[in-house]
């Protein structure tokens, strides 16, 4: 008991960093906490709409599922390259860290390009934020027109995060020699969070809306 009190006193008695992280890293964690609630609210709104309506399941194997699966592979790989960058930075290899960070940003850009092609295909079919394509409306009578609103809203919000992440990483790569290791780690936190969000968006938006076999 006395030992626990001593630990509490050591951590919270003032004059130390109880989390053993700098204020910038703690700030990024707090941002990630708030952003995770933003995405949770969006996904919960989507789930509510989906459960309270007839919902189209329009995603065919090609192009939607193939594209979204490849996008998942790209984003997961970008997380691996990012962790390699942080590892290189921790070992003082700033040049290697820069290469890994640039590779991560390029994978992020690839994700955006693939997602844009996927969006373009759906828009070409006639999907709009508040309107279903005629073919879908006939196949799923009474379906809500809000499919597009949730799809473009959630995936668009995620794509915006990937886009800002790419810019962030290019800036970090350009300034890598001037930055501390913790700054590289912080950019990594943001990037992994973007990856983490996609781990929920991909199954909820795409895999639960696969076109039925019959």
């Amino acid at each position: 008991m006395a030992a626990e009190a001593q630990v509490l006193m050591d951590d919270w008695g003032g004059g130390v960093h109880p989390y053993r992280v700098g204020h910038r890293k703690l700030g990024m964690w707090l941002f990630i906490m708030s952003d995770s609630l933003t995405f949770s609210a969006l996904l919960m709104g989507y789930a509510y709409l989906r459960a309270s309506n007839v919902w189209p399941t329009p995603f065919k194997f090609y192009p939607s599922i193939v594209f979204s699966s490849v996008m998942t592979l790209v984003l997961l790989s970008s997380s691996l390259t990012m962790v390699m960058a942080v590892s290189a930075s921790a070992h003082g290899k700033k040049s290697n860290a820069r290469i890994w960070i640039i590779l991560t940003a390029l994978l992020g850009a690839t994700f955006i390009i693939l997602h844009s092609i996927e969006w373009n295909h759906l828009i070409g079919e006639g999907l709009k934020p508040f309107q279903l394509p005629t073919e879908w409306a006939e196949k799923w009578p009474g379906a809500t027109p809000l499919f597009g609103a949730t799809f473009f809203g959630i995936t668009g919000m995620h794509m915006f995060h990937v886009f800002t992440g790419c810019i962030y990483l290019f800036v970090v790569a350009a300034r890598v020699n001037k930055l501390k290791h913790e700054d590289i780690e912080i950019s990594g936190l943001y990037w992994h969070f973007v990856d983490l969000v996609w781990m929920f968006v991909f199954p909820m938006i795409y895999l639960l809306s696969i076109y039925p076999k019959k």
Partner: protein
Amino acid sequence: MSALADTEDHFAGSNKLFLSIWIWLLLLTGLEVFLGYVQLPVIYMLVILMGASIVKAALIVAYFMHLRFERLNLVLTIVPAVVVCICLLLIFFPDSFRAKALRYNAPLPAGENH
């Protein structure tokens, strides 16, 4: 200065560990895509896919975001608050079934009389 020194370059985990986490994440994603084509009822699909996604998210947070190697103080500050807030969002979800019944004139669930 000693307090600041606490925060400096500590980094645990090997490249081999991160590679194995990446492989696990790919395998779980492959499993999810495979399950998408097994015609299970949507409720089973939802539970399995969300379960797999939570495992993937935990792997990313623990190893890629390094939280497993941070102090327990930080973990306990971040994780429970987010989990509780997300669970609180679920409180509205059951109303969706009532809304569907009203929207499509289906029989209301037992106990609903408006």
